[in-house]
């Protein structure tokens, strides 16, 4: 079974159809590229997968869970279902899980992490604190733990710091550990975003234009890192405009134009596809 399956996904903003009946799926361990001209709906798909807004139509399945579906709308008002979550029977709880709209943090808990097109770090916090955010959902201490600091809480704090360090080292940011995120050079900020996403220990990592604004050297390093991340067992879905990156690391490519999927396949094949060429270069004038 596919790790991520997108079925008939549609998103309308008012009269604008940003995503139009898109279907594709992602196998475990794959690197899939999502490309298309500006405004093709790539980032919208990412936001739909990560639960930032619900789709107008269609569904998304991740690892057997239905993580996105159209909101219940009016039906929700008529038949309130929130109490289902308190019913002890497992089948009922699963039904409740299937009906409600999942919030982004719950989707992250299921194993999807992302980076943002415009870098969204916690700018005034240190690199370490930023990466610690990723470990948050894997730990539990609350008010009690904070106030009374029982041994379990102290152990957990040590675990959080240690996990964060691991990903900082992996992304080569050890020298900047206590630096504020906003003081980092641009390329390092991109890496920090990936480190923070990896710290959630995802099974699927979604990268939104990771190479944007990077120079040649940094881009090469990034491609290498993405391969390493994949080899450590994380499936990767990325949006990228830099064709060198896309053609270099993606095993499969999905091309979008005006919200519709116009091509899918290995890089060499997609490159030759006349519809893709037309979408990027426009129609030939006669």
């Amino acid at each position: 079974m596919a790790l991520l399956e997108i079925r008939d996904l549609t998103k309308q903003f008012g009269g604008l159809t940003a995503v139009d009946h898109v279907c594709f799926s992602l196998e475990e361990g794959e690197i899939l590229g999502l490309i298309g001209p500006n405004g093709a709906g790539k980032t919208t798909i990412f936001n739909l997968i990560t639960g930032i807004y619900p789709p107008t139509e269609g569904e998304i399945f991740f690892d057997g869970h239905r993580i996105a579906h159209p909101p219940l709308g009016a039906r929700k008002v008529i038949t309130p279902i929130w109490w289902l979550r308190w019913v002890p029977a497992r089948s009922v709880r699963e039904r409740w899980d299937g009906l409600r709209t999942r919030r982004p943090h719950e989707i992250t808990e299921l194993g999807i992490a992302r980076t943002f097109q415009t870098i969204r770090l916690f700018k005034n916090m240190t690199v370490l604190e930023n990466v610690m955010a990723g470990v948050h959902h894997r730990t539990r201490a609350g008010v009690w733990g904070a106030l009374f600091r029982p041994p379990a809480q102290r152990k957990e704090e040590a675990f959080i710091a240690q996990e964060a360090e691991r990903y900082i080292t992996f992304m080569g940011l050890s020298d900047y550990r206590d630096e504020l995120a906003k003081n980092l050079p641009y390329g390092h900020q991109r890496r920090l975003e990936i480190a923070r996403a990896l710290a959630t220990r995802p099974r699927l990592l979604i990268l939104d234009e990771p190479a944007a604004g990077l120079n040649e050297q940094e881009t090469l390093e990034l491609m290498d890192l993405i391969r390493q991340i994949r080899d450590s067992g994380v499936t990767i879905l990325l949006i990228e405009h830099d064709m060198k990156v896309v053609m270099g690391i993606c095993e499969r490519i999905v091309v979008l134009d005006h919200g519709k999927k116009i091509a899918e396949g290995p890089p060499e094949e997609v490159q030759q596809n006349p519809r893709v060429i037309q979408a990027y270069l426009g129609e030939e004038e006669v």
Partner: protein
Amino acid sequence: MVSLRARLRQVPPLGWQVGLLALAILLPLPLNDYYRSVLWRTGIYAILGLSLNIIVGYAGLFQLGHAAFYALGAYTSALLNLHFDVPLVLTWPVSILVAAVFGYLISRPILHLRGDYLCIVTIAFGEVVRLALVNNIFGITGGANGLSGMDQTVIFGLTLRSPLHHYYLVLFFLVLTLVAVRRLENSRLGRAWMYVREDEMAAEAMGVDTTRAKLLAFVLGSGWAGLAGALYVARIPVVSPDLARFIESVVMFCIVVLGGTGSIPGVFVGTLGMITLPEIFRFLKTWRDAWMGGAMVAMMIARPEGLWPSRRIRMEIREEE
């Protein structure tokens, strides 16, 4: 100046803490009862400021109805004592609980609001509480006159009579509050609040349950304001709807903002400016509103980050320096 600052920085934190605590204990001894009362009031408002700082400073949520929770705590304590003869000491946990429950009920439906919208709803809530008290809701709050005739506070057989006793009581809870907020700040929960303040969407995408974090900030902050209300009743056996006046909420908000949002020393600086100085210098009291307004305007121009800002906020506001 720089060298003085450098030298002050060399004092170990423990030295500071013990020194300040000793100062706080010894300070009222040479003073007369009036100034001891001023210190007591300062303590109450410092507790209120620290509790509001959890909501406004850490989680970055605007709350301009904090006085309502202060009043709820005070009325809870007063009512339990008047109607059920519960000793005042035992009403304190109930006051915390009642204020916290109201904090939960009020914030749960409005947490998705941001910035100014949230602010408007909290103002409205503060007014609703005040008007409910004025209108003698359920016939138990005594209307505009409020309630009076509560017992004196007795702790372990010791009756608190003089302002000095009450000062030490408030000081004890102030130290407790300080330890608590310091620990909250440096914890998993404290970091979650800061993630929410910095970038809510990124926090959510990293798996932080932002609704829960914001809710906890509201519940803890409100509950602790309830304790401040109960401590007020412990000394002053009269409560009136004036406790929940909008201007009280504004004063609390100013305490947090004047000193520097999110900064614990800042709350003390703010309390000093908003409460202590106007009490000591009478002309400031008569001109209180003008003083408050003037101080806020002057500060927003000269030091938008507050008088004693937290390291983080200073850098947030003074980007280019």
